[in-house]
């Protein structure tokens, strides 16, 4: 499969989703929360309600658009946290080595050995359902991959001529990490973050299924899917469209991530979280 294919399809899907999320207020005909008319509940898709309505009589299309905001917030937000933690730990561990490296290594192994969904579940149990808790829970669980990649890349970058040269030229350690190492990590880290966004969106759905997702009535694809799961016999559209939305978004992110990876570094193909 050509590299173009991945990048193009992934890019198009992601752009569409981001567009949907950003333009939700303009694209949607209804309010995702307040426009609930129980008289209109469970209507099949038609000209008025493109994707039908859910059990509350809310427009599924509208909710999917607004759900995109939540899913993307979850995806991007949690990856921002992950990436920041991973980069800080990974770069410093690789750069300084010694006991700090051992410690970070231990921590990464620790995080890797607890299945991330279970860890997120535990954090959600403490914080209670909600967007912020979700961001924290997912943001704290998956940084180990970024950390590992950052660490190993730093280890190899550290011995590169230009990093060594920076040292001899009098750069401080912080400056070296920030100006010489970090910019060269952006590529792989971006790939991991892109793939991680997809994972986070899936994790949101799984946590919603386990009862620990986003606070309703705020629409998220995960809780829409969970709510509509039992409607599948009488109002399948309420479950099918959010399912497709998740699938396409995660697919888009995965394709984009793959495309980016192939584009940035063919050597990285075998490494994958």
């Amino acid at each position, binding site marked *: 499969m050509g590299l173009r294919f991945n990048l193009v399809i992934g890019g198009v899907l992601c752009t569409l989703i981001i567009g949907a999320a950003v333009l939700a207020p303009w694209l949607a005909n209804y309010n995702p929360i307040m426009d609930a008319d*129980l008289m209109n*509940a469970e209507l099949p898709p038609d000209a008025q309600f493109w994707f039908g309505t859910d*059990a*509350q009589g809310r427009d599924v299309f509208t909710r999917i658009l607004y759900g995109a905001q939540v899913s993307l917030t979850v995806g991007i937000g949690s990856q921002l946290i992950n990436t920041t933690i991973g980069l800080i730990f990974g770069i410093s561990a690789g750069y300084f080595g010694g006991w700090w490296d051992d410690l970070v290594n231990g921590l990464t192994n620790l995080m890797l050995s607890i299945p991330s969904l279970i860890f997120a579940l535990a954090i959600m149990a403490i914080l209670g359902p909600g967007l912020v808790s979700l961001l924290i829970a997912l943001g704290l669980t998956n940084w180990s991959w970024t950390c590992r990649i950052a660490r190993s890349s730093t280890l190899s970058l550290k011995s590169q001529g230009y990093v060594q040269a920076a040292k001899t030229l009098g750069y401080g350690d912080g400056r070296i990490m920030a100006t010489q190492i970090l910019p060269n990590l952006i590529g792989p880290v971006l790939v991991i973050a892109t793939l991680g966004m997809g994972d986070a969106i899936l994790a949101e759905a799984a946590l919603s299924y386990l*009862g620990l997702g986003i606070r309703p009535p705020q629409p998220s694809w995960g809780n829409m899917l969970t709510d509509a799961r*039992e409607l599948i016999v*009488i109002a399948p559209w309420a479950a099918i469209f959010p399912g497709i939305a998740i699938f396409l978004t995660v697919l888009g992110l995965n394709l984009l991530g793959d495309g980016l990876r192939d584009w940035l570094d063919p050597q990285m193909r075998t490494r994958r979280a």
Partner: protein
Amino acid sequence: EEPRSGGVINFVAPYGSSFSSLDIHASAQVQDEFWAKAIHRSLYDWDANESKPVLELATDVSVSDDRLTYTYKLRQDAYFHDGKQMTADDIIYTYTRIMDPAKAYPAAQYISNIKGATEYNEGKAKEISGLKKIDDFTLEITLSDPIDPGYQFMPNYTAIYPVGAAEKEGFFTNPVGLGPYKFAEYVPGSRLSVVKNDKYYDTGKPYADKVNIMIMGDASARDVAFRNKEVDVSVLGPAQYVAYKSDPELANNIMEVAEVYTRHVGFSPDFKPFQDKRVRQAINYAIDSDLIIKRLAKDKAYRASGWLPVSSPAYDKDAKPYPYDPEKAKALLAEAGYPDGFEFELTATQNESWGLTIVEAIIPMLDKVGIKVKAKPVESSVLSEAVPGGDFQAYMWSQESGPDSLTALRCFHSKTPQASCNYTKFNNPDYDKLIEAARQAATDDEKNDLLRKANNLLQEEAPVWFFNYNKAVMAYQPWLHGVQPNSQEMAIQSYEKLWVDDTVPAR
């Protein structure tokens, strides 16, 4: 149709994905009643058709004048699965064990009304003074309060064990009871199987040779399994209720029962706006409960017109629920000094019948009268800690409101602490008087009359938004017969009355 003996019933336990242990005294989960009901028996049993407790392990009871001492004539044809005959010792042993001072068995709440039980439990006494064996088959129980012991000694959680059984090795992996079925096999997390007890005292019963109790928490999975004819019953949620009703094949075999739970939103008395009765009433007016019941609950509920449910003996058939009247609500709010409304936080769980699904529907409705609602989703075990702890502005819950009406209404007695069940700290002297009177009432009619009045007073005061009483719906396969309308908990069936005809698929 004549019940047929033989065959295998595949029953479901739909309330979670595992049983606690095979020690029913230690449990507080309905899920465990599914197997306990098959294996065990308690002193009383619930008569689903009459909706009242009836004697099960005794043939006769006499009551003292002060209504504190009950003398039971125990039945002499009851044998434990291991062959031992049941005697008064077994009951004394069981009740004493439940009050074990070293353990905190949830079942203790049913036994603690026996005189001396609390003292024993606190280690102040060597035995429970209120339990007296007259002879092997005569047992005298003295209560500390004049309440109906039927409700106390009926729950499956108070199942009778043979003397010394719990101390024996292996009892909890191979429990022995008095029930119609004997324990056969338990696959933790998946299934518990029981086989016919040939020596069951109700001769001719049970009918089926074997019952498999499948643990199936997930409604959609259950739905598939039922349609796939892998299980014989399924408890339906609202959506499935609609689907099953409209499916000609499935519609004929649906059992509906008014259960004894009242779904409501409780208002905190510590939250300023809720201190005003008019605000509480306004909320009752502002929500189109009928619409929600019709569209969201899919008619799988009865509109609440007070606290006591439809199946309650004290239910007032003439009572009218709050009508949907947003204008009136607005007026009341304005009167109470909130013309622009206010905002409150509503703590609720994921539950589709009394949780966020409903909250989502009332958010836009209350919004129309200016009240902003912020949902605060919590896990159910967090809700049940927050509510008794008073840690809420409003909460949504389903609370048991029967089968004993008095017990249910006593929750709103001012002496009942919030931590117990007066979650809204309801305090109304008139109400208290009615309850006291009902307690002392000589006849059931008199009692019910008083309770009805109390119930109506409660409705007027509106400490909660009266939403609905649930309607339990169970679908069963056409070959399954003898399903009983158990208003206490629909899904808990007396297995001995169930039988399958010969159209049952081979298992």
